């Protein structure tokens, strides 16, 4: 290559290479063409998707599986707006993603040009930060800042809008290594006085609970959580997004808490006298009715984002800092609390209220997922879509390893699971990757079967097919007198034939006796993607359940005889 000044696009690609980017998930278009052209000569591999939403979720799944930022490249207008759902998904779950969008040339900004959209305006609410670059000289600084902001503190998506004349014109600005962001600070170590206070509160507790969230996954605090739990002698519960930080098969672990958490986890939280949030944000799925949540319990909150303090719950001790660093400072200061009775009580609850499902009378999703856990033993990366299957997967697929559980929690985005698995497989080529999807969610991004097939990614895609939008149907059954509206998924394709149309191996589970054999076959098939459709019973309900807006004590373990009042909480 001659020694000429690089174009903005070439400089951008060089900046991405310097950041260690291996893959860009993208879809081309006019406004982004200079960047796609520069990609031809790059070491970065373009993963061409079939819908920009797929690209956004792939970058997200890649980031959650590896801890490295995922990168998306799309064109202007509708290409960019197709990533908005993905941005929301990443922002709600604090995932580092960089979205690069092509844009019309600068003189046409705001003049309704072809495929122009006010992308920065549209996305203000769903990004951690964003840039509209009007000068190619800003590219190195903006890229470095974007990666820094996306990956530090509370991670999140950052968007860079790139007009075509900026990427096509020359860029002779030097690379930068340092960032100058006076408005951006990241807490690391906790205030020693507050840490000491937290230690005292914990040791005085007779019924403590450690409540672990996504922050523990991000800061890799899981092993510290286990050490703290063992030293203090306290049980552990985790949120949907906290799964995998601390080994869920550990004897002190009571499983997931919250709306569809285990009964014993919720009972422990409802009866505790001290609850410590480790990288968790007291989400409404967890707390139920806030003014009846842990009313008499002392609360400790460890979070890297101080804006979470007092948002839902005002803790007695709030420590701003990295979860792992704070726990490392805390552990030497605690010793065993007086919890023998409490631990015995928690075990009693575990025995008395186990998760259960019927193994006869039709194929059940829970049975399939229970077997999946048996076969993968926590060693596989599991992504899920959104719905009943997601909750059952969370209940039965106990997670043992950090970053092996990937699920859209805050946004609950249908269509997330399959592309996220593709991103995860690319990030973790040596691991088995499964995705668990419902027939509804899978159809939203099923076109990515092509992407998985082209790259021969051995993603195992389990579609739990009940021909219903199951979770909504459950709510209509329980709260709306079974008046079904907008949940009947007639006209589903034969998923096996659909997969085969993409050249993808496909298997079907019809009976409980098929489960082990089929799942094992898929688990061992590594030549390319494999779709497994499980034709489960049409109607089934996820229990336990705490209806939205109900207190933890309002948890129901099985379908009640009378019709229930409509929930008061959100969704």
């Amino acid at each position, binding site marked *: 290559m001659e020694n000429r000044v690089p174009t903005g696009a070439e400089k951008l690609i060089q900046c991405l290479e310097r950041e260690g980017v291996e893959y860009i998930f993208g879809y081309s278009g006019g406004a982004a063409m200079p960047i796609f052209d520069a990609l031809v000569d790059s070491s970065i591999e373009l993963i061409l998707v079939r819908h920009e939403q797929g690209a956004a979720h792939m970058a997200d799944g890649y980031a959650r599986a590896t801890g490295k930022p995922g990168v998306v490249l799309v064109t202007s207008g509708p290409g960019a707006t197709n990533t908005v759902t993905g941005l929301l998904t990443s922002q709600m779950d604090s995932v580092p993603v960089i979205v690069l969008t092509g844009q019309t040339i600068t003189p046409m900004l705001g003049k309704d040009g072809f495929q122009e959209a006010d992308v*920065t*305006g549209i996305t*203000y*609410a769903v990004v*951690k*930060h*964003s840039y*509209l670059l009007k000068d190619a000289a800003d590219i190195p600084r903006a890229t470095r800042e974007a990666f820094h*902001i996306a990956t530090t503190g509370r991670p999140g998506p950052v968007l860079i809008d790139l007009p075509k004349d900026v990427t096509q014109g020359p860029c002779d600005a030097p690379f930068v290594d340092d960032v100058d*962001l*006076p*408005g*951006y600070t990241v807490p690391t170590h906790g205030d020693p006085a507050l840490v000491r206070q937290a230690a005292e509160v914990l040791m005085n507790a007779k019924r403590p609970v450690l409540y672990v969230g996504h922050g523990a996954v991000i800061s890799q605090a899981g092993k510290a959580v286990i050490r703290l739990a063992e030293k203090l002698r306290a049980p552990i519960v985790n949120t949907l997004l906290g799964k995998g930080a601390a080994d869920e098969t550990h004897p002190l672990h009571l499983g997931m808490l919250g709306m569809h958490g285990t009964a014993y986890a919720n009972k422990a939280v409802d009866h505790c006298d001290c609850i410590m949030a480790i990288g968790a944000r007291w989400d409404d799925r967890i707390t139920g009715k806030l003014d009846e949540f842990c009313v008499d319990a002392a609360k400790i909150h460890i979070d890297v*984002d*101080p*804006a979470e*303090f*007092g*948002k839902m719950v005002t803790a007695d001790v709030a420590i701003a800092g990295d979860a792992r660093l704070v726990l490392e400072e805390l552990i030497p200061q605690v010793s065993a609390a007086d919890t023998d009775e409490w631990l015995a009580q928690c075990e009693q609850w575990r025995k008395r209220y186990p998760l259960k499902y019927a193994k006869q009378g039709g194929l059940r999703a829970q049975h399939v997922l229970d077997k999946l856990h048996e076969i993968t033993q926590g060693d596989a990366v599991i992504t899920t879509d959104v719905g009943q299957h997601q909750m059952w997967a969370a209940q039965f697929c106990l997670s043992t390893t950090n970053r092996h559980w990937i699920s859209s929690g805050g946004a609950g985005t249908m269509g997330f699971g399959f592309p996220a698995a593709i991103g995860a497989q690319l990030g973790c080529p040596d691991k088995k990757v499964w995705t668990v999807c419902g027939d509804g969610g899978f159809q939203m991004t099923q076109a990515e079967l092509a992407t998985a097939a082209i790259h021969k990614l051995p993603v195992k895609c389990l579609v739990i097919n009940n021909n219903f939008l199951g979770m909504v149907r459950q709510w209509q059954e329980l709260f709306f007198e079974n008046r079904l509206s907008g949940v009947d998924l007639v006209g589903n394709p034969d998923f096996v034939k659909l997969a085969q149309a993409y050249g993808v191996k496909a298997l079907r589970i019809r009976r409980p006796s098929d489960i082990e054999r089929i799942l094992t076959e898929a688990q061992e098939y590594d030549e390319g993607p494999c779709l497994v459709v499980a034709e489960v019973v049409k109607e089934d309900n996820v229990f336990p359940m705490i209806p939205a807006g109900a207190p933890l004590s309002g948890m129901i373990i099985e379908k009640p005889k009378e019709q229930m009042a409509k929930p008061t909480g959100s969704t």
Partner: protein
Amino acid sequence: MSSPTPIQNPPGFRPIAPGNAQKASRDLHTISLLVRDAPGVLVRVAMVFSRRGYNIESLVVSPAARSGFSRMTVTCSGDPAILEQMIKQLSKLVDVVHALDHTSSDRYETEIALIKLRCEGEQRREVLEVAEHFSAKVVDYAAESVILRVYGGSEKLDAMISLFSEDSIVELVRSGKIVMTRALEVT
């Protein structure tokens, strides 16, 4: 909106007409922000308010002493319980260097108002008397109207405005409050 809090008239004064329905400045919160001077910062800040249903009464933004930065003073109304949370969410923005609540801090504050009043004959004398009392200057003197320029604390402006009837006020423009903390404390 509930009926306006009555504002005390200065002693010895006969109001020309009953008070106007302007929200009493003492019910408002004042937040000052030091932000980066870049496109989009204003929108991001405003969105923190709009998302929570917090109404912005006034917003002043202009260059700060340090180049590349701006100062914003926001006067807003809403549930005080959410205010602390909102300050944190403002601080969280990458472009915001700091955000501080000045509602009860020791500070100097001021604001300017321009009031265009319809007045002829006898009315004009009364208007000028009010103006003199509040140290307002007549900046436009026309056949059927005058424009008064008054500056000072927001409550002083509220008081003066309330002395004029709705019929006599043709137009009113307020600059919005700006504040600065006393001595060497940071604004």
